[in-house]
């Protein structure tokens, strides 16, 4: 197990190296600099700024010094917000994005798994069709549509919940988490249903039924472990998707998380901020994919870990 984990992690290092390098040169080849503001700066000021951020050095030198700093956990200064470093901004944004993704994941799992189980018990009946149609609706309702609609209904018409912010008012975390979670709840419902139907057709389930066990016991004691395997395999990619999906949700609800920083950095051509967030998110996603691989194998002894 440890060997497998180490091997996968070791394999991830060159991948991340390529990603970082590619991103660095891609961003630096972009036309237009970070200081192309609405008002043109005087030439001396521009020269000074370029000198301060070492933008007048040859590209390979900038690259080497960036990599050197990165190894020490220093993402460099933000080009846009001169008094803040990228590391600082990431440290304030990341916990918020993480918290949001975590709540969304919980919502997705609770709704998705229960809907999937309900549907799988009596396939091709109303008990199956109703939750599965809702799941399909959830998949077809993108977050940038779901979010505003929820705001319109619960925030503005009913005035039950706050419509923006994060941790400023009680309940302001509910709508963003639901918005981000529903799409994944729908996927998880479909995966759960598929996995459960397959497991429920197995011989050992028939044996359990023949023993006279009640349906809930069969489901929880015998079927869930196998039936949830597809869901577990999906958790890594799902978490990655949640982190990426946080762009839209954080923009809609004005949440000061990493996703919003990224989108702003993209608009502002804040090189170091774009680089920092890309590197961080790539690393996180690679790690989550490895974790979900391990979890899948751990729960299914018939699979073995291969590096």
């Amino acid at each position: 197990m440890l060997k497998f984990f180490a091997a996968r992690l070791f394999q991830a290092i060159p991948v991340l190296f390529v990603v970082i390098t590619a991103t660095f040169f891609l961003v630096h080849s972009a036309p237009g600099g970070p200081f192309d503001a609405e008002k043109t700066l005087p030439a001396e000021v521009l020269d000074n700024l370029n000198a301060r951020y070492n933008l007048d050095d040859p590209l390979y030198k900038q690259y080497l010094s960036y990599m050197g700093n990165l190894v020490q956990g220093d993402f460099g200064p933000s080009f846009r917000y001169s008094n803040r470093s990228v590391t600082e901004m990431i440290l304030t944004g990341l916990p918020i994005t993480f918290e949001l993704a975590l709540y969304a994941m919980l919502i997705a799992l609770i709704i998705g798994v229960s809907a999937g189980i309900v549907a799988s018990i009596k396939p091709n009946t109303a008990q199956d069709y109703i939750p599965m149609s809702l799941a399909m609706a959830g998949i077809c309702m993108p977050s940038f549509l779901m979010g505003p609609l929820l705001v319109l209904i619960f925030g503005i018409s009913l005035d039950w919940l706050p419509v923006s912010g994060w941790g400023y008012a009680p309940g302001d975390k509910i709508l963003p988490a639901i918005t981000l979670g529903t799409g994944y709840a729908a996927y998880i419902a479909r995966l759960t249903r598929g996995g459960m139907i397959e497991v429920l057709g197995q011989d050992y389930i028939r044996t359990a039924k023949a023993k006279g066990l009640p349906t809930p016991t069969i489901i929880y004691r015998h079927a869930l472990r196998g039936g949830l395997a597809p869901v577990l395999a999906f958790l890594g990619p799902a978490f990655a998707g949640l982190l990426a999906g946080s762009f839209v949700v954080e923009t809609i609800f004005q949440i000061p998380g990493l996703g919003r920083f990224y989108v702003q950095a993209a608009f502002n051509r804040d090189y170091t901020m774009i680089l920092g967030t890309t590197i961080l998110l790539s690393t996180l996603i690679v790690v989550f994919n490895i974790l979900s691989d391990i979890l899948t194998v751990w729960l299914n002894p018939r699979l073995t870990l291969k590096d």
Partner: protein
Amino acid sequence: MTTTQLKNTHSNSDYGSYSLWREASYRLKKNTMAMLGFWTLLALFAIAACTPWLAPYAYENQNLALGASPPSAQHLLGTDIHGRDLLTRLMYGSRVSLLVGFAATAVSLVIGILWGTIAGYIGGRIDAVMMRIVDILYALPFMIFIILLMVVFGRSFLLLFLAIGLVEWLTMARIVRAQVLSVRKQEYIDAAIVTGLAHWQIIYRHVMPNILGPVIVYITLTIPSVILLESFLSFLGLGIQPPQSSWGVLISRGVESMEEYPWLLIFPGLTLSITLFSLNFLGDGLRDALDPRTAKN
């Protein structure tokens, strides 16, 4: 057995059994939701294709005096704050969104099929390396890279569907490779090699017909995800740029004024959702129809 062979043997037999495709289309026709999706999409394509003749107003037409007005007899879906007819803008937006959906899917299709066929047909070490690359790319956050590409190279239309197509081919390559791999082991491929057919002939005549089913299914599932991606980018302001409209652009404008003029959000949102709904149902239906094993579930 290839599908063509299936057809021949079956049409000659007296048992009255169906070919794979006839059986599949029969199963598909019985699936109400899938057929509903199919007809909805057909209608949508027809409208999008004929928009320049069907649209009630000219695309640039503004009526600043009118401003935003709710749906009425003159403007069936209302107008936006510049007094532009929403139905017209939605029709033109559908052209853009559908075009991006299909063009990007086509890009991913070409790359995916080439990659998957080469890996699966040659096999061995080349296969291992090619699929490893796919595995590695799978683990990367592509949303971020698309945004990055759009920022670096400017927000051009061509780049948008190239970028999306370049990241959507991975699953296609996997599906194609798995399929090619299983066909490759069949005895009739050995027979074809023995008779002296060139490799490209074998691929074209014997391998391609067999990967068609899963590929068609996956196309119907890729198009909605591409459309969604484009809308997502346009919503963030990184995709299609105004004055050109797409569903994402319209929804994003609609959100800005949803409190005062909710119809500006509701109609584009509804169009997008219905399209995604139809494509997903059609894709699911096709999968069940072409693969009898899954149809039972």
